[in-house]
């Protein structure tokens, strides 16, 4: 079995204290004078790298691994509602085509629903090689167990090497169940995807809730699964001509027996969506009082922007959570984004790095937001925003 082995003979008390201090997850502890690793361990292996042999990583000798050659193709789950394909699914088709080319695999789509022929036809304009359709009236509503059954049927029949799922509400509910069913890895909210010649999917995402990127692989299992948020990748151009084979699959309808009842589906009120904004004025912990948001709003109105924010302002209840940019909020790609008083944790930057021009204002010159910015001002937003507002007004001859 792969495990961390502690060489107690190489550890004196001082070394033990160093190791305890070294572990960022408080997973190394002392018990009866000996060093132990507890269940807080995230296997970052820093203790192995920096422990001078005190802790070793020992791999299992006969690692059981799947035969990767039996798993072929990159599959995109097609998320749709009322006959419209969710843009994130098209973006994933774009990425799947890139990845598939490297390893000469086909790109597949799995389409689940009721009355979805039109969607299948539409998909033929985006360069998918095979479109696998499960069209049953029992699948009209998303009931997670029924969709999991169908997805499992697909994986057993087609054996795709990788599966990409949009991180929509539905995708984030369905993908984990499918992953658990196959006891395989699912990496959430990937921001970069690459592929190795041996078909291992390289999944990169911000990790540990902070300023760190983690590169994750699912070396010994297939299918490899990941979710990706909207606006991370680019959708392919819609082609005029159609291509790609549509296959209708049969499934035992007796298995589609979820007891969940869908009583009603209500379209949510049209709301201010920051995801579509051309200009975004984002604020963070640098804002000291709720009333100060008015100053930001005035500036945003002048530049034709929408005000958005980071997680702390949501947590203190000053802003609506629909206005949060970042991994736990929305991913945005505006033409212009201002970041006022935002330190720039990956949690946030991963949700806005695609913006065309980023302007950051922060009082701390070490703030990591400046690593994402194209223009930066080291200064107090309470001085900078009024000054910028004044300049714009002067320029446009606005006298109030």
């Amino acid at each position, binding site marked *: 079995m792969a495990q961390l082995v502690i060489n107690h003979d190489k550890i004196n008390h001082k070394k033990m204290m160093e190791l305890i201090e070294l572990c960022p997850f408080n997973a190394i502890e002392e018990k009866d004078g000996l060093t132990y690793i507890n*269940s807080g361990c995230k296997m970052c292996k820093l203790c192995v790298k920096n422990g001078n042999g005190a802790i070793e990583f020992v791999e299992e000798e006969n690692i059981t691994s799947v035969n990767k050659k039996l798993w072929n193709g990159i599959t995109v789950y097609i998320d749709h509602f009322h006959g419209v394909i969710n843009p994130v699914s098209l973006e994933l088709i774009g990425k799947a085509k890139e990845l598939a080319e490297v390893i000469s695999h086909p790109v597949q789509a799995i389409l689940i629903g009721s009355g979805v022929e039109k969607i299948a036809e539409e998909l033929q304009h985006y360069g998918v090689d095979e479109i696998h359709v499960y069209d049953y009236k029992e699948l009209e509503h998303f009931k997670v167990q029924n969709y999991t059954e169908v997805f499992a049927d697909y994986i057993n029949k087609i054996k795709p090497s990788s599966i990409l799922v949009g991180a929509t509400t539905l995708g984030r509910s369905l993908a984990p169940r499918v992953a658990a069913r196959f006891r395989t890895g699912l990496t959430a909210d990937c921001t970069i995807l690459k592929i190795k010649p041996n078909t291992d999917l390289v999944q990169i995402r911000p990790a540990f809730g902070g*300023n760190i990127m983690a590169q994750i692989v699912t070396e010994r299992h297939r299918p490899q699964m990941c979710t990706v948020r909207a606006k991370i990748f680019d959708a392919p151009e819609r082609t005029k001509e159609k291509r790609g084979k549509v296959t209708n699959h049969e499934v035992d309808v007796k298995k589609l027996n979820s007891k969940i009842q869908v009583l009603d589906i209500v379209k949510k009120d049209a709301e201010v969506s920051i995801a579509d904004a051309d200009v975004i004025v984002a604020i963070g912990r640098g804002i000291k009082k709720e009333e100060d948001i008015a100053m930001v709003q005035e500036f945003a109105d002048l530049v034709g922007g929408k005000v958005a924010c980071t997680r702390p302002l949501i947590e203190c209840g000053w802003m609506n959570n629909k206005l949060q940019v970042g991994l736990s909020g929305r991913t945005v790609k505006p033409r212009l984004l201002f970041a006022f008083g935002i330190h720039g944790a990956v949690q946030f930057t991963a949700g806005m790095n695609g913006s065309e021009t980023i302007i950051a204002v922060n009082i701390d010159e070490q703030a990591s937001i400046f690593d994402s910015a194209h223009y930066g001002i080291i200064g107090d937003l309470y001085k900078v925003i009024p000054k910028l507002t004044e300049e714009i007004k002067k320029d446009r001859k606005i006298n109030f």
Partner: protein
Amino acid sequence: MKIAVCIKQVPGGTNVQVDPVTGVLLRDGVDSKINPYDLYALESAFQIKKQIDSEIGVLSMGPPQAKAVIRESFSMGVDTGVLLSDRKFAGADVLATSYALAQGLKAMGDIDLIICGKQTTDGDTAQVGPEMAEYLSIPHISNVSKILEVTSENLTVEADMGETIEIQTIGYPCLITVEKGIYTPRLPSYKNKLDTATRGIKVLTFDDLDDKDEKKYGLNGSPTQVERIFNPPKNPDKEMFLGDEAAIELFGKLKIRKII
């Protein structure tokens, strides 16, 4: 009715960085807290208990220090607490964590309703709830934004599906993950804290679980591996301004480049 709420101890701060020279993770502070999203799960359980006589138990997994969050939940009104803690669970990814938790829930006896927060602030995956439900072969509804009706047979809820709200009825046993803002979480009460100061927290180890296949837990039960961790790439060509005139200079530049 028996309700289980899954809670997690997470780092208090999120400011973690990699030292570029040594590759060591640097933390600011070591304090930890209950995952903020779990407070909404706990409050949902308390609200249900108001309508239907229930016993609320919490389950957490982590090192012995994680007992602190269970104790905190006692002072909010939770009845019983279980901590899953064993070195054999070390190095678990989402899947192995979900499996161990699902086994822990089984060990807690017949549970009608499992409530989880939407996600954690340190992992941000939102996957553990649905994966546990799959392992327990029970239905689940994610992103529950409102609980409309509670009966002894089922729950009727609103699920926030992004563009739509779906009203669904789900029978027990089942699992729901609740949205932030479903209710306003209560604060721990000092009286409860005193009253529960000596209440025991049951610690479950590997040996207490039904499935004793070591390949399904910890590192060995984790299909994903972290190959490396690194700081995000920096942007080398940026223009910086400072001083009193910074805003004016920046505005000038943006105007020339037709950005504003």
